[in-house]
């Protein structure tokens, strides 16, 4: 685990697990704190296929600017064929995302570990059943056992 950025006497903890970057959101996700947070986050979004997990366990306070930041990060990550996932949302943050219809845009996990693992799960080789019919590993389903 390595300390990544420091702004306004606030240390944002960040650590990487393979290609996935886990970043802890500040306690207050509002206009002022959000700008500082974005300054730290932007370089990470400019890489190819950014894989980000935002750990929301410390978030005590969130306003619409905070939600806008989350949406902006998501947008930037998607533009570069990456993804952004949220982890450890408090019930109040989850309720507000739900109220503002933003919850359905993000994948939310109970912990950062779980969110990071979900990226690796995508990277595993595809199983034969999910492959197209013309691929080498494709097999016809066993009709007898299916019936």
């Amino acid at each position, binding site marked *: 685990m390595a300390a990544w950025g420091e702004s306004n006497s606030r240390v944002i903890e960040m650590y990487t697990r393979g290609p996935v970057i886990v970043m802890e959101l500040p306690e207050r996700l*509002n206009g002022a704190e959000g700008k500082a947070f974005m300054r730290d986050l932007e370089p990470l979004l400019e890489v190819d296929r950014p894989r980000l997990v935002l750990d929301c366990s410390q978030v005590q*306070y969130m*306003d*619409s600017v905070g939600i806008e930041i989350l949406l902006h990060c998501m947008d930037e990550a998607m533009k570069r064929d990456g993804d952004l996932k949220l982890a450890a949302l408090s*019930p*109040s943050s989850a*309720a507000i995302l739900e*109220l*503002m*219809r933003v919850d359905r845009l993000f994948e939310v996990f109970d912990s950062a570990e779980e969110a990071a693992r979900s990226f690796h799960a995508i990277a595993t080789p595809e199983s034969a059943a999910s492959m197209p019919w013309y691929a080498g590993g494709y097999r016809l389903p066993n009709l007898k056992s299916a019936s």
Partner: protein
Amino acid sequence: MGPGAIVIIGSDRQPFSVTPKKASEEEVFFSKPFSCVDVLGRSMVERTIDRLLRADAEIVSVLVAADIAESVQAIAGKFGDVRFQVVTDFCAAIQAKLKDHAEAGIEHSFVVSASVYAETDLLDFYYFHREAQQVATRSFDREGPMDLWVVSCSQSQDGDLGAILNAKHGSASAYFVREYVIRATGPKSLRQFACDMFQNCCVARPSGREVKPGIWMDQGAEAHRRARVVAPAYIGRRSKVQQDALVTRCSNIEEDCCVDCGTVIENSSVLSDTHVGIWLDVCNAIAEGNLFLSLNREIALEISDPAIIRVNGASKKTKGRNRGLIQWDDAHASVPDVQQVVALQPLDSKPEKPSAPDSWQLGANPIQG
């Protein structure tokens, strides 16, 4: 001479009850007690008073806890013949009232807490008590004892009233209520009551007019022709549902509310004087002023962003004062905040923007039954 009646309205902080309550039931959520919150046009206490008047109660007296007196004023104005009195000591006040009733020639009186709404046959209960020949007869239902008694006015003056009312089941005969009962113990009970009324689980009906099967609209309620109201649903007095909004699944919008464009109200209650902003998803929740209760997650949020939810129109300042909040600073108007209810935020005092009152056509409303 017929029976008398004493209705007791305790605050949620200090409810009148001789039954021990769980700690979670004593939390304070709204600016008034649950029993005084309008559900489908009328509060539980109004419905209880109505039932007592229909049971030919000679005198109906309402005793109100001092800290909630202001919020009960509106209810007091609706009943001309009912005497409302602000008290600090409920037991002493009940005893004094029973004495008054005895002096007026009333032999037996109902004593009922406003936090219990029971659709029992009150006259049957009254005759049961008379035949039992005891000082007080308590009612109970499947869930246990209820704060609804019939008390002999003159005999109750002899002993300690608290002990008489709290007599253990078995020491005196009790009256079993088989009909519909609901206890106003928390926000969930308000939702439960609304759903029960919609689903005809009780005799109580929504106020207003059933414009389509399962859709109730009260006086002055308006739904934009592009709004969708799907049964069962209730729109209260002078409330507005703006275009593209959806009200569905046993949702109730109480009086003087506004559901703004594109917002979905599903299985939720929007309590009186609440403005719900645009493009929101209010699902399994209760909104009152700037307070948002998510029943799924069991959390309460105080939202200080007036664009999301806020106190509606004229009653704005009054509500803010009731909650002891300070005025909203214009400088913060563009920085909406969301915070847990434990830390109260400055409240809005911004003049309300008029909310698209263009093309209201109640008659041509495509309400879906």
